[in-house]
């Protein structure tokens, strides 16, 4: 009974958003028209139909395409994972220890504005394998974001919590477990959501510049071979992959903070 009501609700909402659907349809139509027109001028813009055809003809059944998916996802996983692994403790350390902050933060702030891709040559020089150098770049992208968010989150823990815990006789370790860690979770969630988008962005570019496999590489090959259809297939694949990753991160966030679904206060800080 309840399920039926939910479906009805979903359908109703879909219909209510007709304007959005109109916009998307209009976009595709304009694209189609531009594409058809351009072929009379020298054939540059592929139409949506051409792209779809190319996709179903050459990509869906080609295992190499799916291996590109796997390669990109793997790199994202490693880079993102390491960023959390190193970034969260550093953020906590910066937040809890004034001394650490005063020593490390200035250097950190000087390095932060350097775009991750500017690290590519250094990364290639340093790391023994291609894979490692690409993963390092994605790591850089997510690392700074997570550190800043965790640091910010800890700085905003009201001091009273610490005073209260100490007056109740808590040891530093307990304070860490019971006050610091829970406060960090929303910031980690925000950092992860921002980080995953940056990670994909960085990865795609890194692959274009220096990769041998992966969705970014695929897009680049389309460019090099002057086949825009492949470029667009690549772009859309990347878009879908990025979207899926974001959904996965959302899911993790929901598991970490089940209470946040209903309380806007816990949305964390940018």
């Amino acid at each position, binding site marked *: 009974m309840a399920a039926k009501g939910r479906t009805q609700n979903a359908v109703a909402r879909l219909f209510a958003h007709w304007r*959005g659907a109109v916009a998307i349809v209009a976009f595709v139509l304009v694209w189609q028209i531009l594409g058809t027109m351009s072929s009379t001028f020298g054939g540059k813009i592929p139409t949506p139909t051409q792209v779809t055809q190319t996709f179903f003809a050459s990509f869906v059944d080609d295992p190499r395409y799916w291996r590109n998916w796997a390669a990109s996802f793997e790199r994202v996983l490693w880079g993102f994972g390491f960023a959390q692994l190193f970034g969260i403790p550093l953020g906590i350390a910066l937040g809890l220890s004034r001394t650490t902050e005063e020593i490390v933060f200035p250097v950190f702030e000087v390095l932060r504005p*350097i775009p991750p891709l500017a690290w590519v040559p250094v990364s290639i020089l340093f790391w023994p394998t291609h894979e490692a150098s690409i993963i390092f770049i994605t790591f850089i992208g997510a690392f700074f974001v997570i550190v800043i968010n965790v640091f910010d989150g800890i700085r905003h823990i009201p001091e009273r919590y610490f005073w209260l815990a100490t007056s109740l006789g808590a040891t530093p370790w307990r304070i860490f477990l019971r006050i610091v860690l829970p406060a960090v979770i929303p910031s980690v969630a925000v950092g992860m959501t921002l980080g995953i988008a940056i990670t994909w962005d960085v990865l795609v570019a890194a692959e274009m510049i220096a990769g041998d496999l992966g969705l970014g590489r695929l897009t680049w090959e389309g460019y090099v071979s002057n086949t825009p259809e492949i470029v667009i297939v690549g772009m859309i694949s990347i878009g879908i992959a990025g979207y899926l990753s974001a959904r996965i991160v959302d899911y993790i966030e929901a598991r970490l903070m089940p209470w946040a679904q209903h309380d806007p206060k816990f949305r964390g800080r940018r």
Partner: protein
Amino acid sequence: MLSAIVNRRVGLMVFGFAAAFVLWYASVKWLPFPAFRRLPDPVGVLQEWLSRDPAYGISVFTADYYVHILYSTYRATTAFALAVVLGVPLGIMMGWKTTVREYSDALLTLLRPIPPLAWVPLAILLFPGTEPAVIFVVFLVAFYATTLNTWVGVRAIDVAYFRAALCLGARPVDVLRDVIIPGAMPSIFTGLQIAMGAAWFSLVAGEMIAARYGLGYVIWEAYNLIQYPTIVIGMVTLGFVGYVCSALIRVAGDRLMRWHQKNIGAVRG
């Protein structure tokens, strides 16, 4: 008392930089790992950067250095300006009028997951030349950040302000000028700073892939020509220039929003 604290801060900061420097030098020169050996060392970088006759042609004394900086800055600021001019009004309309939002929301959400840099190859294929292509990609990034933050900023304005203005007899143009723009200002400026940062970030990628001047190009060329110290010069310059641009925006925002600074406690939320 205060001077002691300030001294401590400065002291520790200097210590931090010094330690980083030493670590960098030590790891490049003394660590027995070949990976580290390949990296340029800080002393070499500094020498190159400050030399009147640099081995690889880029230092504070060469005109080329500034030409590259100019190119990069020009691209970043052009794309940024375009993004602001288009993004802020769109963001305002999206936040203000539900119909506008409904038309644009679905489209933007659909296109958003595609990383801006994924547009680079397409842009190069479609635009007549690399310069417009690179600017286009940078524009896209900045545009998204600006529009989104503006939209959020408008939505976040407490509805009571709108109602108060209407009660007092405000017409739509008054509401726009007196409630929406000042109310969304803080968010807009945050968005602008983010947009600026994002613009530099994609600019570098664009330049590395496809340009002939600019700091991204410098870095990539230096790598290809085995001019390693120049790589670092490029990186540091990038960081610095990008930071300055963001800081300029922040300062501009602070001046435009004196009221924000002066309010000792939030009047509302």
